[in-house]
């Protein structure tokens, strides 16, 4: 229990993030508010606090998608596709590590098919791949997952839209103010500049913040390639001059 305001956060730059209304991404048209957001000039403990998941019981393979979905334990095999490690650090805007924070991810399989009842794409499911992972960052803000590189997939937007290969990434950070869901793309993928969802961002530098980068030094010989994806959440400021008139 903690109702003391310990920290504030650097205001979110909403011209950097995608706007709610981005008509190239068609579903945003009926799902975007038309009214302005109401800015909270006085942030309260309600926004400046958030959940800590250190007591959430995790399974041994929660961050290992090569092992955490097995239809049949007896005949379990490995998923088909490019074995990769996705790893990185969660830091704040001041470069400070964000320790013990929950990082969750989900993705399609090597063929671009999601293990979700609503995904009817004709590429098959992989019997040994579920596509979901989670972990807490360590003391220094590091996280890692072992997985299969997801495939691109078609979706009904423009007459022939394809998502670049991507992994959905969810991070909590120290408060609900820092809550963020994004997508990691793979650097060099030629589908990235064609994607209407990527194009919801106006600044090409903002797109660069979502790139997973090949890291040969962390790749494991004869085993997996590594992609590094650092996540920057809003910077935490101490409250120096609170209530001093």
């Amino acid at each position: 229990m903690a109702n003391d305001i310990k920290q504030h956060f650097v205001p979110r730059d909403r011209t950097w993030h995608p706007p709610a209304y981005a008509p190239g991404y068609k579903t945003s048209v009926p799902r975007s508010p038309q009214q302005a957001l109401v800015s909270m000039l006085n942030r309260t403990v309600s926004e400046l606090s958030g959940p800590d998941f250190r007591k959430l019981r995790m399974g041994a393979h929660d961050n290992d998608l090569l092992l955490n979905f097995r239809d049949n334990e007896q005949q379990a095999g490995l998923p088909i596709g490019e074995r990769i490690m996705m790893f990185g650090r969660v830091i704040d805007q001041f470069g400070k590590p964000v320790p013990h924070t929950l990082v969750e991810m989900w993705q399609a399989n090597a063929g671009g098919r999601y293990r979700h009842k609503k995904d009817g794409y004709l590429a098959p499911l992989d019997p040994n791949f579920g596509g979901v992972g989670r972990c807490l960052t360590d003391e220094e803000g590091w996280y890692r997952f072992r997985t299969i590189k997801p495939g691109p997939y078609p979706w009904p937007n423009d007459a022939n839209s394809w998502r670049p290969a991507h992994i959905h990434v969810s991070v909590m950070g120290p408060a609900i103010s820092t809550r963020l869901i994004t997508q990691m793309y793979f650097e060099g993928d030629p589908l990235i500049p064609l994607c209407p969802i990527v194009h919801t961002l106006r600044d090409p530098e903002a797109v660069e913040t979502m790139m997973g980068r090949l890291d040969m030094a962390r790749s494991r010989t004869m085993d997996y390639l590594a992609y590094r994806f650092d996540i920057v959440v809003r910077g935490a400021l101490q409250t120096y001059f609170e209530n001093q008139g």
Partner: protein
Amino acid sequence: MQQPNTLPASASVLRETASQTAGPYVHIGLALSIAGLPPRAEEIWNEMAHEDAEGERIELVGRVIDGNNDTVRDALLELWQADAQGEYHESYDLQAPFNSFGRTAATVENEGEWRVVTVKPGAVEFPDGRHMAPHVNLAIFARGINIHLNTRLYFDDEAQANLQCPVLNAIESPNRRKTLIAHKEESSDGITRYRFDIRLQGEKETVFFDF
């Protein structure tokens, strides 16, 4: 369309990682059983209060409605609220009687009606020492939502507290304040239920906050 980013970035801070929509399959990552995936040892879900939690046990239900007046059936919602005493429980612990954090989803299976079991929150202090009316913080994620939407749920049987709430009063339009009030429903099963529909766009559009 707005112009490309023109705000001066401070040289002293890094840029926040950009947001992207949670997409149509958010449930496989954050609501496994709904996607048809086997649950793990522990999942973060919509029972925020066990039977032995202190306070009035309540159910929150609602729909997310788009600008065409259609019900959204692929949203994920996150809740953050104080306990009956107005205290936030930061440590998420499924063994504890109450958790301040919860998740729920609007899906095809529940016809877009999300549901949470919790306790009615107590009043939380505003920075100047006044009290905010009891409220639940809600974040909405879905396909078509590029950056999650933050809102608050207040209770219609807290009219006096709502009238004095500094956050509600900071909303310029009194008509728009009404969009944050959940309505108590008569129920036959003994639990007090509040309905809170979130309108993403158009007439009676819900107030969303930037904080």
